[in-house]
């Protein structure tokens, strides 16, 4: 784990985990964007999990920033899953009309890791099919 300025970014099972456990000031959000991009480049993960159970209030700026982060990650070939959103916050975001469009979500960290593990397996199987079309077809079936 690299010691970052505000929010730690941890590599776990080939994914990056960002667990936000402190008050997100605007400055921290901006730093986080940069740090995540750096880490993606450094660690080459398959997925990025942004874990939000430590946040209690999510306004439009932070929501937009998280969406931006996931879009940037996607441009770098990394799939983002957002996990741990507090139910009250989810209600608030919907009522305010701020929706995380185009971003995968999961109920909690475990579910997020499962989603990413699955997508990684699918991706690897697909790659194998490309490089070795006569290869073990059973593995493909297992994944499905």
């Amino acid at each position, binding site marked *: 784990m690299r010691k970052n300025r505000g929010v730690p970014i941890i590599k776990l099972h080939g994914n990056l985990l960002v667990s936000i456990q402190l008050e997100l000031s*605007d400055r921290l959000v901006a730093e986080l964007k940069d740090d995540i991009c750096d880490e993606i480049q450094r660690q080459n993960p398959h997925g990025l999990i942004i874990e939000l159970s430590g946040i*209690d209030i999510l306004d439009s700026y932070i929501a937009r920033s998280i969406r931006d982060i996931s879009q940037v990650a996607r441009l770098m070939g990394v799939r983002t899953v957002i996990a741990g959103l507090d139910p009250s916050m989810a209600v608030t975001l919907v009522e305010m009309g701020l929706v995380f469009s185009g971003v995968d979500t999961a109920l909690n960290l475990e579910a997020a890791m499962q989603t990413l593990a699955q997508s990684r397996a699918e991706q690897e199987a697909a790659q194998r099919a490309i490089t070795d079309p006569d290869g073990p077809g059973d593995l493909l079936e297992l994944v499905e």
Partner: protein
Amino acid sequence: MMAPAQDRNARGLLETVLSQYMTGVEARGIIHYAFRHCEPESIDPERDGFPLPLINRLLRGVELFVKDETKRTCCKDRLGGLVGKTDPGASTRAEKNHDPPNGHRAANGHGATNGHGGAPNPSESEAPASAAVKLQLLADNDIVVARNQAKDTTAAMGFSKTEQIKIATAVSELARNVIRYATRGELRLEPAPGPATGIQVVCADQGPGIPHLERVLAGAYKSKTGLGLGLLGCKKIMDRFEVHTGPGGTTITAVKYRL
């Protein structure tokens, strides 16, 4: 403004307490910030204790700097113990425009829920439950302070958790708009007018005003900077939402009643 000696005394006392849980630099930082925002008129810690808004402000800092759970609880208890122990009327002694009250509030020991009479004096609260809180919005961090204060105030008023989050989010939006577009402003959290329990949020600045207001509020305006989204979101959440804006500044008044 406070006499220098009193000020030093008060700060020194707070620093002694706080630096047992964080570094001296952090403690002094929090204290400086709290005093700057609460503008206490006079503090005599031995006689009056500290005003509640000041302690609340310090508690925010404790949240940030004291990571250890046990230490944090301990520190918060210590700070809580420093709040003016005398009757709620004691804190009004520090008010700017008031004569010392003849204990009229102290008599029933209640914060007022039925209006504040003449001068609301928002910067000193008489009792947490119906505090009128005034916050200066000067820097990024104040957005965080504002929304936490909104959460605390609505919690004290008995709003449900989801409602607290909604209102705090709305406050966060308004505060952010002020900092972003008007650089500085003021936020007031006070009991809503009328018999029903509710909170009134008044956010005022002297910025350049909100362009295309009608279109923003109709959801038809797509701003590059995101100004419209937050404002529209607030309007959807709150029960009443009034915007007065012009080139000289903007005042937004929003009310939400408790269910």
